[in-house]
């Protein structure tokens, strides 16, 4: 287990393995996204009260779920970076922030577009929407904090601290609809079965959630590869990579 952990810290190994993973994960992601989107947006039945506007669920829920999960990835990478001073953990943490920010923004935007016809308002300051806005600011904060230092080791340390302190927001977002009176409805789906979404609508939603998880991993690996090349641009293995044009397969 520890040898695997040490390999994770090696930029050439990480670059090589991520290329191999992407070679099959990227097509799989596109397939899942296309399948889920066509099924959800065209073939799933309309809702009995909301009609077709409920279809925003197929973007809103996956984006929001993965935005929350992505924060744990970022904070976890931050913890590894603080404890083991592993450079690849810094790279992973830095790569998570813009992806998470984009997903959070997508969740907020799709929620606002759905809220206008359904609730009657674009935005309401209830516990769920406000804590989600804080999540966006946390992601943007990590991006800004990283850019504020010239010394990357120092920047990673500060960002890891911010990311770790921010983890407290994730259970708050998740439970906000149960702890307080909010306009946002309680959770519709649960892993323990008994979802309050009809199965004809739920199946494409599971597909879309899986697709967004894959999309997150693909974006993370692609961003990390770019960052690895930038950091290691003066090393022999990157030069060798460029000379042989081996793409992702060189280790």
């Amino acid at each position, binding site marked *: 287990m520890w040898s695997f952990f040490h390999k994770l810290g090696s930029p050439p190994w990480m670059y090589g393995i991520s290329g191999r993973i992407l070679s099959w994960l990227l097509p799989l992601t596109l397939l899942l996204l296309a399948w889920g989107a066509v099924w959800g947006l065209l073939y799933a*039945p*309309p*809702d*009995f*009260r*909301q009609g077709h506007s*409920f279809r925003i*669920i197929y973007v809103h829920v996956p984006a929001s779920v993965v935005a929350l999960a992505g924060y744990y990835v970022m904070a976890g990478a931050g*913890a590894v970076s*603080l*404890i*083991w001073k592993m450079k690849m953990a810094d790279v992973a943490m830095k790569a998570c922030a813009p992806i998470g920010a984009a997903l959070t923004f997508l969740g907020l935007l799709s929620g606002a577009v759905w809220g206008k*016809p*359904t*609730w*009657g*308002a674009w935005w*309401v*300051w*209830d*516990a769920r929407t406000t804590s989600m806005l804080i999540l966006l600011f946390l992601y943007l904060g990590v991006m800004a904090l990283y850019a504020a230092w010239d010394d990357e080791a120092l920047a990673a340390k500060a960002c890891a*601290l911010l990311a*770790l*302190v921010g*983890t*407290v*927001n994730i259970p*708050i977002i998740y439970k906000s609809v149960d*702890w*307080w*009176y*909010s*306009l946002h*409805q*309680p*959770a*519709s789906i649960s892993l323990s079965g008994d979802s*309050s*979404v*009809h199965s*004809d*609508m739920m199946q494409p939603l599971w597909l879309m959630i899986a697709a967004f998880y894959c999309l997150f991993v693909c974006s993370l690996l692609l961003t990390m590869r770019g960052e690895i090349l930038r950091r290691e641009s003066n090393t022999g293995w990157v030069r060798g990579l460029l000379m042989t044009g081996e793409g992702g397969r060189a280790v």
Partner: protein
Amino acid sequence: MHPVRKQRLWAVVFIVVFSSLAAGLVGYGLRGNINLFFPPAEVAAGLAPAGQPIRVGGMVVVGSVERSTDSLQVRFAVTDYQATVKVEYEGILPDLFAEGEGVVAAGALDERGVLRASEVLAKHDENYMPPEVADALLKANTAGVTP
């Protein structure tokens, strides 16, 4: 594990635990203020200030909606099955506004205890189903069969 790393691991654990604790205490201190609306039971108990902007949320009482014939004036009652608050509103209601469904009304309580609303929002519940399923459920309910 290397002692220095173990020390850093403890620092990470302390950061997470104490920031959670701090956030938890803040949340506990603000517990009432984070709620978006008052349920009618709290309004009836006098917990909601009169004459100040507040929100009241609950279910629209079935049969309580009265619409004016020559204006957008509408009156209805909101309940949490413990108490009821009357609401007066002039304006366009959201599409999902219906009797027996959730609603959040923003406004101020007048001296009669009626909420003069400036905004009415529909509160959607967590149930999603196709129209045919909803029809079948309704038929089963009226036929006395529990779904």
